[in-house]
Protein backbone atom coordinates (compact mmCIF):
# COMPACT_ATOMS: atom_id res chain seq x y z
CA UNK A 1 0.00 0.00 0.00
CA UNK A 2 1.56 3.18 -1.16
CA UNK A 3 0.79 6.80 -1.54
CA UNK A 4 2.51 9.16 -3.94
CA UNK A 5 2.17 12.89 -3.75
CA UNK A 6 3.14 15.06 -6.69
CA UNK A 7 3.50 18.72 -5.77
CA UNK A 8 3.33 21.29 -8.60
CA UNK A 9 2.85 25.03 -8.94
CA UNK A 10 -0.05 26.00 -11.13
CA UNK A 11 0.18 28.79 -13.72
CA UNK A 12 -2.01 30.99 -11.52
CA UNK A 13 0.41 30.56 -8.61
CA UNK A 14 -1.74 28.06 -6.73
CA UNK A 15 -0.43 24.79 -5.34
CA UNK A 16 -1.49 21.52 -6.92
CA UNK A 17 -1.14 18.20 -5.13
CA UNK A 18 -1.84 15.11 -7.18
CA UNK A 19 -2.33 12.03 -5.08
CA UNK A 20 -2.11 8.49 -6.29
CA UNK A 21 -2.47 5.26 -4.40
CA UNK A 22 -4.30 4.55 -1.17
CA UNK A 23 -5.09 7.10 1.46
CA UNK A 24 -5.58 5.23 4.71
CA UNK A 25 -4.44 5.23 8.33
CA UNK A 26 -0.89 4.35 7.29
CA UNK A 27 -0.43 6.85 4.47
CA UNK A 28 -2.61 9.74 5.68
CA UNK A 29 0.16 11.22 7.90
CA UNK A 30 2.25 11.69 4.75
CA UNK A 31 -0.46 13.80 3.13
CA UNK A 32 -0.99 15.67 6.39
CA UNK A 33 2.68 16.66 6.54
CA UNK A 34 2.59 17.90 2.96
CA UNK A 35 -0.72 19.72 2.87
CA UNK A 36 -0.88 21.43 6.27
CA UNK A 37 2.09 23.78 5.68
CA UNK A 38 0.60 24.68 2.26
CA UNK A 39 -2.78 25.74 3.63
CA UNK A 40 -1.18 27.46 6.62
CA UNK A 41 -0.34 30.48 4.47
CA UNK A 42 -2.54 33.59 4.23
CA UNK A 43 -4.87 33.37 1.19
CA UNK A 44 -3.22 30.23 -0.16
CA UNK A 45 -4.92 28.45 -3.01
CA UNK A 46 -4.49 24.69 -2.83
CA UNK A 47 -5.94 22.08 -5.16
CA UNK A 48 -6.05 18.42 -4.33
CA UNK A 49 -6.36 16.10 -7.31
CA UNK A 50 -7.65 12.66 -6.34
CA UNK A 51 -8.14 11.07 -9.76
CA UNK A 52 -5.63 8.30 -8.99
CA UNK A 53 -6.66 7.78 -5.40
CA UNK A 54 -8.01 4.24 -5.53
CA UNK A 55 -9.00 4.10 -1.92
CA UNK A 56 -9.65 6.48 0.90
CA UNK A 57 -10.84 5.75 4.41
CA UNK A 58 -12.02 8.00 7.22
CA UNK A 59 -8.43 8.89 8.20
CA UNK A 60 -7.99 10.40 4.74
CA UNK A 61 -11.21 12.36 5.18
CA UNK A 62 -9.81 13.55 8.53
CA UNK A 63 -6.73 15.02 6.87
CA UNK A 64 -8.86 16.81 4.29
CA UNK A 65 -11.08 18.21 7.06
CA UNK A 66 -8.02 19.45 8.98
CA UNK A 67 -6.69 21.09 5.79
CA UNK A 68 -10.07 22.65 5.08
CA UNK A 69 -10.34 24.10 8.58
CA UNK A 70 -6.85 25.54 8.46
CA UNK A 71 -7.45 26.98 5.00
CA UNK A 72 -10.63 28.73 6.25
CA UNK A 73 -8.71 30.19 9.17
CA UNK A 74 -6.13 31.68 6.82
CA UNK A 75 -8.73 32.91 4.31
CA UNK A 76 -7.46 30.53 1.67
CA UNK A 77 -9.23 28.22 -0.74
CA UNK A 78 -9.08 24.47 -0.88
CA UNK A 79 -10.43 22.71 -3.94
CA UNK A 80 -10.71 18.97 -4.36
CA UNK A 81 -10.99 17.57 -7.85
CA UNK A 82 -11.58 14.37 -9.77
CA UNK A 83 -13.13 12.14 -7.16
CA UNK A 84 -13.57 8.48 -7.98
CA UNK A 85 -17.11 7.17 -7.37
CA UNK A 86 -16.08 5.49 -4.13
CA UNK A 87 -14.42 8.62 -2.76
CA UNK A 88 -17.26 10.78 -4.04
CA UNK A 89 -19.75 8.69 -2.06
CA UNK A 90 -17.62 9.18 1.07
CA UNK A 91 -17.69 12.96 0.53
CA UNK A 92 -21.46 12.85 0.17
CA UNK A 93 -22.11 10.74 3.26
CA UNK A 94 -19.87 12.83 5.50
CA UNK A 95 -21.39 16.09 4.23
CA UNK A 96 -17.99 17.27 3.05
CA UNK A 97 -19.26 17.82 -0.49
CA UNK A 98 -21.54 20.58 0.85
CA UNK A 99 -18.74 22.70 2.24
CA UNK A 100 -15.64 21.91 0.19
CA UNK A 101 -15.46 23.03 -3.42
CA UNK A 102 -15.32 20.00 -5.68
CA UNK A 103 -14.22 20.35 -9.28
CA UNK A 104 -14.62 17.61 -11.78
CA UNK A 105 -12.26 18.32 -14.62
CA UNK A 106 -12.71 14.92 -16.20
CA UNK A 107 -16.42 15.54 -16.66
CA UNK A 108 -15.81 18.95 -18.20
CA UNK A 109 -13.37 17.48 -20.67
CA UNK A 110 -15.75 14.82 -21.89
CA UNK A 111 -18.76 17.07 -22.29
CA UNK B 1 52.27 4.18 33.15
CA UNK B 2 51.51 7.43 31.42
CA UNK B 3 48.47 8.83 33.19
CA UNK B 4 48.18 12.19 31.49
CA UNK B 5 44.81 12.43 29.73
CA UNK B 6 44.83 11.82 26.04
CA UNK B 7 42.89 14.33 23.95
CA UNK B 8 41.67 13.49 20.48
CA UNK B 9 39.99 16.21 18.46
CA UNK B 10 37.16 15.01 16.26
CA UNK B 11 36.75 16.62 12.85
CA UNK B 12 36.41 13.70 10.47
CA UNK B 13 35.97 9.94 10.32
CA UNK B 14 39.70 9.28 10.66
CA UNK B 15 39.59 10.99 14.02
CA UNK B 16 37.00 8.46 15.14
CA UNK B 17 39.53 5.71 14.40
CA UNK B 18 42.27 7.58 16.26
CA UNK B 19 40.04 8.01 19.31
CA UNK B 20 39.12 4.32 19.32
CA UNK B 21 42.74 3.31 19.06
CA UNK B 22 43.83 5.60 21.83
CA UNK B 23 41.09 4.28 24.10
CA UNK B 24 41.87 0.66 23.32
CA UNK B 25 45.55 1.11 24.04
CA UNK B 26 44.85 2.78 27.34
CA UNK B 27 42.35 0.05 28.27
CA UNK B 28 44.90 -2.61 27.42
CA UNK B 29 47.59 -0.93 29.54
CA UNK B 30 45.15 -0.80 32.44
CA UNK B 31 44.58 -4.54 32.18
CA UNK B 32 41.06 -4.71 30.68
CA UNK B 33 40.29 -8.02 29.00
CA UNK B 34 39.66 -8.48 25.30
CA UNK B 35 35.91 -8.08 25.44
CA UNK B 36 36.05 -4.99 27.61
CA UNK B 37 38.65 -3.45 25.33
CA UNK B 38 36.29 -3.97 22.43
CA UNK B 39 33.40 -2.52 24.46
CA UNK B 40 35.38 0.56 25.41
CA UNK B 41 36.46 1.07 21.79
CA UNK B 42 32.86 0.73 20.63
CA UNK B 43 31.63 3.24 23.21
CA UNK B 44 34.29 5.76 22.13
CA UNK B 45 33.33 5.10 18.55
CA UNK B 46 29.67 5.89 19.22
CA UNK B 47 30.51 9.07 21.12
CA UNK B 48 32.97 10.29 18.50
CA UNK B 49 30.52 9.48 15.75
CA UNK B 50 27.80 11.52 17.43
CA UNK B 51 30.18 14.49 17.57
CA UNK B 52 31.14 14.02 13.93
CA UNK B 53 27.51 13.68 12.75
CA UNK B 54 25.72 16.29 14.85
CA UNK B 55 28.24 18.78 16.22
CA UNK B 56 30.84 18.53 13.42
CA UNK B 57 33.69 19.30 15.84
CA UNK B 58 34.48 18.24 19.35
CA UNK B 59 36.88 16.40 21.55
CA UNK B 60 37.28 12.99 23.18
CA UNK B 61 39.35 12.95 26.35
CA UNK B 62 40.55 9.59 27.61
CA UNK B 63 42.03 9.35 31.07
CA UNK B 64 42.88 6.85 33.78
CA UNK B 65 40.85 6.70 36.97
CA UNK B 66 43.37 6.03 39.72
CA UNK B 67 41.33 6.01 42.88
CA UNK B 68 39.80 3.38 45.08
CA UNK B 69 38.62 1.69 41.94
CA UNK B 70 40.81 1.77 38.87
CA UNK B 71 39.35 2.28 35.46
CA UNK B 72 39.06 4.38 32.37
CA UNK B 73 37.17 7.60 31.85
CA UNK B 74 35.97 8.93 28.52
CA UNK B 75 34.73 12.47 28.11
CA UNK B 76 33.08 13.54 24.87
CA UNK B 77 32.60 17.27 24.60
CA UNK B 78 31.31 19.52 21.84
CA UNK B 79 29.82 22.95 21.26
CA UNK B 80 27.22 21.63 18.84
CA UNK B 81 23.46 22.06 18.77
CA UNK B 82 22.92 20.14 22.00
CA UNK B 83 20.17 17.63 22.68
CA UNK B 84 16.72 19.03 23.23
CA UNK B 85 15.07 16.04 24.83
CA UNK B 86 17.56 14.04 26.85
CA UNK B 87 14.97 11.63 28.14
CA UNK B 88 14.07 10.74 24.59
CA UNK B 89 17.72 10.47 23.50
CA UNK B 90 18.32 8.02 26.35
CA UNK B 91 15.33 5.89 25.37
CA UNK B 92 15.83 2.53 23.72
CA UNK B 93 14.65 2.27 20.16
CA UNK B 94 14.99 6.00 19.60
CA UNK B 95 17.82 6.71 17.26
CA UNK B 96 18.33 9.28 14.56
CA UNK B 97 21.21 7.47 12.90
CA UNK B 98 19.32 4.24 12.38
CA UNK B 99 21.61 1.91 14.33
CA UNK B 100 20.15 -1.02 16.22
CA UNK B 101 20.97 -0.88 19.90
CA UNK B 102 23.45 1.88 19.26
CA UNK B 103 23.26 5.51 20.31
CA UNK B 104 23.54 6.83 23.84
CA UNK B 105 21.68 3.97 25.57
CA UNK B 106 24.20 1.65 23.90
CA UNK B 107 27.13 3.62 25.31
CA UNK B 108 25.52 3.53 28.73
CA UNK B 109 25.23 -0.25 28.52
CA UNK B 110 28.82 -0.72 27.41
CA UNK B 111 30.20 1.30 30.31
CA UNK B 112 29.66 1.25 34.09
CA UNK B 113 28.96 4.94 34.69
CA UNK B 114 27.31 7.40 32.39
CA UNK B 115 26.55 11.08 32.79
CA UNK B 116 25.32 13.63 30.29
CA UNK B 117 24.89 17.38 30.39
CA UNK B 118 23.47 19.15 27.37
CA UNK B 119 22.21 22.63 26.71
CA UNK B 120 20.32 23.38 23.54
CA UNK B 121 22.42 25.59 21.28
CA UNK B 122 25.48 25.32 23.51
CA UNK B 123 26.72 21.78 23.34
CA UNK B 124 26.94 18.44 25.04
CA UNK B 125 29.30 16.89 27.55
CA UNK B 126 29.16 13.16 28.15
CA UNK B 127 31.25 11.35 30.76
CA UNK B 128 31.42 7.57 30.65
CA UNK B 129 33.50 5.37 32.93
CA UNK B 130 34.40 1.73 33.11
CA UNK B 131 36.09 0.06 36.07
CA UNK B 132 38.38 -2.92 36.31
CA UNK B 133 36.77 -5.85 38.04
Amino acid at each position, binding site marked *: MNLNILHEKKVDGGELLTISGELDAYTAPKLKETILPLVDVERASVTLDLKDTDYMDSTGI*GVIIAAYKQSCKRNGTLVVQNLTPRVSRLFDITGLSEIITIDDIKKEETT | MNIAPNRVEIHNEWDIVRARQSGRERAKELGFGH*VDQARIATAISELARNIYLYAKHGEIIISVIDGEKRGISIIAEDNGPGIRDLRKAMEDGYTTSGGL*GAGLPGVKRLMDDFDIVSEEGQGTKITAKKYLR
Partner: protein
Amino acid sequence: MIDHKELYQHYRKLLIEHMERKSEKTLYNGQLFSRQMMENGVSPEDVLSLHIDVIKEFYPHMDEKFQSAFDFLLEAMIGYGLAYREHQNLRYKQRQLESEIDIAADVQQSLLVGEVPHYDFLDIGVISRPAKRMSGDYYHFVKDEQNCLSVAIADVIGKGIPAALCMSMIKYAMDSEPEQRTKPGAVLENLNRVVEQNVDPSMFITMFYGLYNESQHRLYFASAGHEPGFYYSSNKDEFQELIAKGRVLGLDRSTKYREYEKNIDVGDMVILFSDGVTECRTEKGFIERDEIVRLIRQRMHLSSQEIVDGVYKELERLQDFQLRDDFTLIILKREV
Protein backbone atom coordinates in the same frame (compact mmCIF):
# COMPACT_ATOMS: atom_id res chain seq x y z
CA MET C 1 24.08 -13.71 36.92
CA ILE C 2 26.27 -16.75 36.54
CA ASP C 3 29.78 -16.60 37.82
CA HIS C 4 32.31 -16.13 35.03
CA LYS C 5 34.52 -19.00 36.17
CA GLU C 6 31.61 -21.37 36.38
CA LEU C 7 30.51 -20.31 32.92
CA TYR C 8 33.98 -20.85 31.57
CA GLN C 9 34.24 -24.34 33.04
CA HIS C 10 30.85 -25.30 31.70
CA TYR C 11 31.50 -24.02 28.21
CA ARG C 12 34.97 -25.56 28.20
CA LYS C 13 33.56 -28.96 29.09
CA LEU C 14 30.90 -28.83 26.37
CA LEU C 15 33.30 -27.58 23.74
CA ILE C 16 35.93 -30.23 24.51
CA GLU C 17 33.29 -32.94 24.42
CA HIS C 18 32.28 -31.77 21.01
CA MET C 19 35.80 -31.44 19.66
CA GLU C 20 36.65 -34.95 20.80
CA ARG C 21 33.46 -36.81 20.09
CA LYS C 22 31.66 -34.64 17.56
CA SER C 23 28.08 -35.89 17.50
CA GLU C 24 24.55 -34.57 17.24
CA LYS C 25 24.28 -35.03 20.99
CA THR C 26 27.21 -32.73 21.73
CA LEU C 27 25.77 -30.15 19.34
CA TYR C 28 22.42 -30.42 21.06
CA ASN C 29 24.21 -29.63 24.34
CA GLY C 30 25.48 -26.47 22.67
CA GLN C 31 21.94 -25.45 21.83
CA LEU C 32 20.78 -26.03 25.39
CA PHE C 33 23.74 -24.01 26.61
CA SER C 34 22.78 -21.05 24.44
CA ARG C 35 19.29 -21.06 25.85
CA GLN C 36 20.67 -21.08 29.37
CA MET C 37 22.97 -18.17 28.47
CA MET C 38 20.07 -16.13 27.13
CA GLU C 39 18.00 -16.79 30.23
CA ASN C 40 20.87 -15.38 32.24
CA GLY C 41 21.25 -12.34 30.02
CA VAL C 42 24.69 -13.29 28.70
CA SER C 43 25.57 -11.31 25.57
CA PRO C 44 26.79 -12.89 22.34
CA GLU C 45 30.19 -11.22 22.70
CA ASP C 46 30.61 -12.85 26.11
CA VAL C 47 29.96 -16.26 24.62
CA LEU C 48 32.46 -15.56 21.87
CA SER C 49 34.97 -14.43 24.46
CA LEU C 50 34.55 -17.73 26.35
CA HIS C 51 35.15 -19.53 23.09
CA ILE C 52 38.34 -17.61 22.38
CA ASP C 53 39.64 -18.24 25.88
CA VAL C 54 39.07 -21.99 25.65
CA ILE C 55 40.72 -22.17 22.22
CA LYS C 56 43.69 -20.20 23.50
CA GLU C 57 44.07 -22.63 26.39
CA PHE C 58 44.27 -25.49 23.95
CA TYR C 59 46.36 -23.78 21.34
CA PRO C 60 48.62 -21.42 23.27
CA HIS C 61 50.72 -20.88 20.18
CA MET C 62 47.84 -19.90 17.95
CA ASP C 63 48.81 -18.38 14.67
CA GLU C 64 48.83 -14.57 15.00
CA LYS C 65 46.60 -14.05 11.98
CA PHE C 66 44.15 -16.55 13.40
CA GLN C 67 44.15 -14.64 16.66
CA SER C 68 43.48 -11.36 14.81
CA ALA C 69 40.58 -12.97 13.02
CA PHE C 70 39.00 -13.76 16.39
CA ASP C 71 39.53 -10.17 17.53
CA PHE C 72 37.77 -8.98 14.42
CA LEU C 73 34.80 -11.25 15.07
CA LEU C 74 34.65 -10.10 18.68
CA GLU C 75 34.47 -6.49 17.55
CA ALA C 76 31.67 -7.31 15.15
CA MET C 77 29.72 -9.09 17.89
CA ILE C 78 29.72 -6.11 20.26
CA GLY C 79 27.03 -4.46 18.13
CA TYR C 80 24.93 -7.61 18.19
CA GLY C 81 25.28 -7.71 21.95
CA LEU C 82 23.96 -4.16 22.21
CA ALA C 83 21.05 -4.91 19.92
CA TYR C 84 20.32 -8.02 21.99
CA ARG C 85 20.24 -6.13 25.26
CA GLU C 86 18.17 -3.36 23.77
CA HIS C 87 15.76 -5.98 22.57
CA GLN C 88 15.49 -7.46 26.07
CA ASN C 89 14.72 -4.05 27.48
CA LEU C 90 12.19 -3.22 24.79
CA ARG C 91 10.45 -6.51 25.41
CA TYR C 92 10.16 -5.66 29.05
CA LYS C 93 8.75 -2.23 28.17
CA GLN C 94 6.33 -3.77 25.74
CA ARG C 95 4.97 -6.06 28.42
CA GLN C 96 4.49 -3.03 30.67
CA LEU C 97 2.65 -1.13 27.95
CA GLU C 98 0.50 -4.10 27.14
CA SER C 99 -0.64 -4.48 30.69
CA GLU C 100 -1.42 -0.76 30.77
CA ILE C 101 -3.48 -1.11 27.60
CA ASP C 102 -5.28 -4.13 29.04
CA ILE C 103 -6.37 -2.06 32.01
CA ALA C 104 -7.45 0.81 29.75
CA ALA C 105 -9.40 -1.61 27.56
CA ASP C 106 -11.20 -2.94 30.64
CA VAL C 107 -12.08 0.59 31.70
CA GLN C 108 -13.37 1.28 28.23
CA GLN C 109 -15.41 -1.90 28.14
CA SER C 110 -17.11 -0.90 31.35
CA LEU C 111 -18.02 2.45 29.74
CA LEU C 112 -19.10 0.98 26.45
CA VAL C 113 -21.11 -2.02 27.33
CA GLY C 114 -24.46 -0.78 28.37
CA GLU C 115 -27.31 -3.11 28.92
CA VAL C 116 -29.40 -3.83 25.88
CA PRO C 117 -32.97 -3.14 26.95
CA HIS C 118 -35.62 -5.77 26.54
CA TYR C 119 -38.94 -5.15 24.82
CA ASP C 120 -41.75 -7.47 23.79
CA PHE C 121 -42.30 -5.60 20.57
CA LEU C 122 -38.68 -5.28 19.53
CA ASP C 123 -35.95 -7.87 19.07
CA ILE C 124 -32.54 -6.25 19.44
CA GLY C 125 -29.18 -7.74 18.43
CA VAL C 126 -25.77 -6.07 18.87
CA ILE C 127 -22.19 -6.99 18.24
CA SER C 128 -19.22 -4.66 18.68
CA ARG C 129 -15.62 -5.79 18.25
CA PRO C 130 -12.49 -3.63 18.27
CA ALA C 131 -9.89 -4.08 15.50
CA LYS C 132 -7.15 -3.70 18.09
CA ARG C 133 -7.56 -3.76 21.83
CA MET C 134 -9.57 -0.60 22.20
CA SER C 135 -12.50 0.54 20.14
CA GLY C 136 -13.42 3.81 18.47
CA ASP C 137 -16.95 2.57 17.89
CA TYR C 138 -19.67 3.45 20.31
CA TYR C 139 -23.28 2.46 20.70
CA HIS C 140 -25.89 2.96 23.31
CA PHE C 141 -29.50 2.14 24.03
CA VAL C 142 -31.67 4.04 26.44
CA LYS C 143 -35.20 3.11 27.41
CA ASP C 144 -37.25 6.01 28.72
CA GLU C 145 -40.43 6.34 30.78
CA GLN C 146 -42.69 6.50 27.73
CA ASN C 147 -41.34 3.17 26.52
CA CYS C 148 -39.39 4.93 23.80
CA LEU C 149 -36.03 3.55 22.84
CA SER C 150 -33.17 5.79 21.84
CA VAL C 151 -30.40 4.12 19.93
CA ALA C 152 -27.07 5.66 18.95
CA ILE C 153 -24.18 4.33 16.97
CA ALA C 154 -21.01 6.36 16.52
CA ASP C 155 -17.68 5.86 14.88
CA VAL C 156 -14.63 7.88 15.83
CA ILE C 157 -12.16 8.33 12.98
CA GLY C 158 -9.19 6.03 13.21
CA LYS C 159 -8.87 3.24 15.70
CA GLY C 160 -7.04 2.19 18.80
CA ILE C 161 -6.23 4.37 21.78
CA PRO C 162 -6.77 7.88 20.33
CA ALA C 163 -10.18 6.89 18.99
CA ALA C 164 -11.06 5.23 22.29
CA LEU C 165 -10.19 8.36 24.28
CA CYS C 166 -12.38 10.42 22.01
CA MET C 167 -15.16 7.91 22.33
CA SER C 168 -15.17 8.28 26.13
CA MET C 169 -15.78 11.99 25.64
CA ILE C 170 -18.81 11.27 23.47
CA LYS C 171 -20.13 8.90 26.05
CA TYR C 172 -20.05 11.58 28.75
CA ALA C 173 -21.48 14.24 26.47
CA MET C 174 -24.38 11.90 25.69
CA ASP C 175 -25.01 11.13 29.35
CA SER C 176 -25.13 14.79 30.27
CA GLU C 177 -28.09 15.76 28.13
CA PRO C 178 -30.99 13.45 28.91
CA GLU C 179 -33.70 16.03 28.26
CA GLN C 180 -32.99 16.22 24.53
CA ARG C 181 -33.07 12.53 23.86
CA THR C 182 -36.43 12.80 22.20
CA LYS C 183 -35.10 15.05 19.42
CA PRO C 184 -32.45 13.30 17.36
CA GLY C 185 -31.52 16.46 15.44
CA ALA C 186 -30.98 18.44 18.64
CA VAL C 187 -28.88 15.67 20.18
CA LEU C 188 -26.52 15.75 17.21
CA GLU C 189 -26.37 19.55 17.20
CA ASN C 190 -25.27 19.57 20.83
CA LEU C 191 -22.71 16.83 20.35
CA ASN C 192 -21.39 18.62 17.29
CA ARG C 193 -20.61 21.68 19.38
CA VAL C 194 -18.86 19.57 22.02
CA VAL C 195 -16.75 17.79 19.44
CA GLU C 196 -15.95 20.96 17.50
CA GLN C 197 -14.62 22.61 20.65
CA ASN C 198 -12.69 19.76 22.13
CA VAL C 199 -11.20 17.69 19.42
CA ASP C 200 -8.15 17.92 17.19
CA PRO C 201 -9.09 19.34 13.75
CA SER C 202 -8.33 16.11 11.92
CA MET C 203 -10.41 14.03 14.32
CA PHE C 204 -14.09 13.64 13.59
CA ILE C 205 -16.96 11.46 14.56
CA THR C 206 -19.88 10.09 12.61
CA MET C 207 -23.08 9.24 14.40
CA PHE C 208 -26.54 7.92 13.77
CA TYR C 209 -29.12 8.74 16.39
CA GLY C 210 -32.59 7.27 16.40
CA LEU C 211 -35.65 7.32 18.62
CA TYR C 212 -38.13 4.48 18.38
CA ASN C 213 -41.58 5.50 19.52
CA GLU C 214 -43.52 2.48 20.68
CA SER C 215 -47.04 3.94 20.54
CA GLN C 216 -46.57 5.07 16.94
CA HIS C 217 -44.11 2.37 15.92
CA ARG C 218 -42.18 5.03 14.17
CA LEU C 219 -38.45 5.67 14.08
CA TYR C 220 -37.29 9.28 14.23
CA PHE C 221 -33.67 9.65 13.26
CA ALA C 222 -30.85 11.90 12.19
CA SER C 223 -27.33 11.23 10.99
CA ALA C 224 -24.05 13.06 11.25
CA GLY C 225 -22.22 11.70 8.23
CA HIS C 226 -22.67 8.13 9.40
CA GLU C 227 -22.54 5.21 6.99
CA PRO C 228 -26.21 4.73 6.00
CA GLY C 229 -27.88 1.72 7.52
CA PHE C 230 -30.63 -0.41 6.01
CA TYR C 231 -34.35 -0.58 6.44
CA TYR C 232 -35.99 -3.90 5.66
CA SER C 233 -39.60 -3.75 4.62
CA SER C 234 -41.33 -7.06 5.29
CA ASN C 235 -44.29 -6.01 3.17
CA LYS C 236 -42.21 -5.54 0.06
CA ASP C 237 -39.55 -8.02 1.19
CA GLU C 238 -36.80 -5.62 0.25
CA PHE C 239 -33.84 -3.83 1.80
CA GLN C 240 -33.57 -0.07 1.36
CA GLU C 241 -30.86 2.37 2.33
CA LEU C 242 -31.78 4.26 5.46
CA ILE C 243 -30.82 7.60 4.05
CA ALA C 244 -30.22 10.58 6.30
CA LYS C 245 -28.05 13.50 5.35
CA GLY C 246 -25.88 15.44 7.78
CA ARG C 247 -22.32 16.58 8.27
CA VAL C 248 -19.90 14.66 10.45
CA LEU C 249 -19.55 15.91 14.03
CA GLY C 250 -16.74 18.39 14.47
CA LEU C 251 -16.74 19.79 10.95
CA ASP C 252 -18.67 23.02 11.36
CA ARG C 253 -20.06 24.32 14.61
CA SER C 254 -23.30 25.77 13.24
CA THR C 255 -24.46 22.59 11.52
CA LYS C 256 -28.19 21.80 11.75
CA TYR C 257 -29.34 18.22 11.51
CA ARG C 258 -32.48 17.27 9.67
CA GLU C 259 -34.79 14.81 11.33
CA TYR C 260 -36.22 11.92 9.32
CA GLU C 261 -38.90 9.39 10.19
CA LYS C 262 -39.95 5.95 9.13
CA ASN C 263 -42.91 3.77 10.01
CA ILE C 264 -41.92 0.36 11.23
CA ASP C 265 -44.35 -2.50 10.56
CA VAL C 266 -44.34 -5.93 12.10
CA GLY C 267 -41.41 -7.91 10.68
CA ASP C 268 -39.54 -4.79 9.57
CA MET C 269 -35.89 -4.38 10.49
CA VAL C 270 -33.57 -1.45 11.07
CA ILE C 271 -29.92 -2.32 10.53
CA LEU C 272 -27.20 0.02 11.74
CA PHE C 273 -23.46 -0.41 11.50
CA SER C 274 -20.07 1.28 11.59
CA ASP C 275 -17.88 1.54 8.50
CA GLY C 276 -15.82 -1.34 9.84
CA VAL C 277 -18.59 -3.49 8.41
CA THR C 278 -18.59 -2.00 4.92
CA GLU C 279 -14.83 -1.46 4.81
CA CYS C 280 -14.22 -5.16 5.25
CA ARG C 281 -11.52 -6.14 2.83
CA THR C 282 -10.95 -9.55 1.39
CA GLU C 283 -8.55 -10.85 -1.21
CA LYS C 284 -11.16 -10.13 -3.86
CA GLY C 285 -11.66 -6.53 -2.76
CA PHE C 286 -14.13 -4.74 -0.56
CA ILE C 287 -17.27 -6.29 0.75
CA GLU C 288 -20.06 -4.51 -1.06
CA ARG C 289 -23.18 -3.42 0.73
CA ASP C 290 -25.14 -5.96 -1.31
CA GLU C 291 -23.04 -8.67 0.23
CA ILE C 292 -24.02 -7.52 3.73
CA VAL C 293 -27.66 -7.62 2.68
CA ARG C 294 -27.17 -11.13 1.34
CA LEU C 295 -25.59 -12.28 4.61
CA ILE C 296 -28.49 -10.85 6.61
CA ARG C 297 -31.10 -12.26 4.27
CA GLN C 298 -29.67 -15.78 4.67
CA ARG C 299 -30.30 -15.52 8.42
CA MET C 300 -33.60 -13.67 8.56
CA HIS C 301 -35.40 -16.57 10.24
CA LEU C 302 -33.08 -16.24 13.24
CA SER C 303 -33.18 -13.86 16.19
CA SER C 304 -31.52 -10.45 15.81
CA GLN C 305 -28.63 -11.47 18.04
CA GLU C 306 -28.09 -14.65 16.06
CA ILE C 307 -28.11 -12.64 12.83
CA VAL C 308 -25.46 -10.13 13.96
CA ASP C 309 -23.29 -12.89 15.44
CA GLY C 310 -23.58 -14.92 12.25
CA VAL C 311 -22.78 -11.97 9.96
CA TYR C 312 -19.78 -11.06 12.10
CA LYS C 313 -18.43 -14.61 12.02
CA GLU C 314 -18.81 -14.78 8.26
CA LEU C 315 -17.09 -11.44 7.66
CA GLU C 316 -14.34 -12.28 10.12
CA ARG C 317 -13.67 -15.47 8.22
CA LEU C 318 -13.70 -13.70 4.85
CA GLN C 319 -11.01 -11.34 6.16
CA ASP C 320 -8.81 -14.15 7.46
CA PHE C 321 -9.66 -13.21 11.03
CA GLN C 322 -7.96 -9.84 10.80
CA LEU C 323 -10.25 -6.91 11.40
CA ARG C 324 -8.99 -3.74 9.75
CA ASP C 325 -11.39 -1.48 11.55
CA ASP C 326 -13.63 -1.55 14.60
CA PHE C 327 -16.81 -3.46 13.84
CA THR C 328 -20.28 -2.71 15.20
CA LEU C 329 -23.55 -4.10 13.87
CA ILE C 330 -26.99 -3.51 15.37
CA ILE C 331 -30.30 -5.00 14.28
CA LEU C 332 -33.74 -3.95 15.54
CA LYS C 333 -36.64 -6.13 14.43
CA ARG C 334 -40.27 -5.32 15.22
CA GLU C 335 -41.94 -8.43 16.60
CA VAL C 336 -45.53 -7.39 17.30
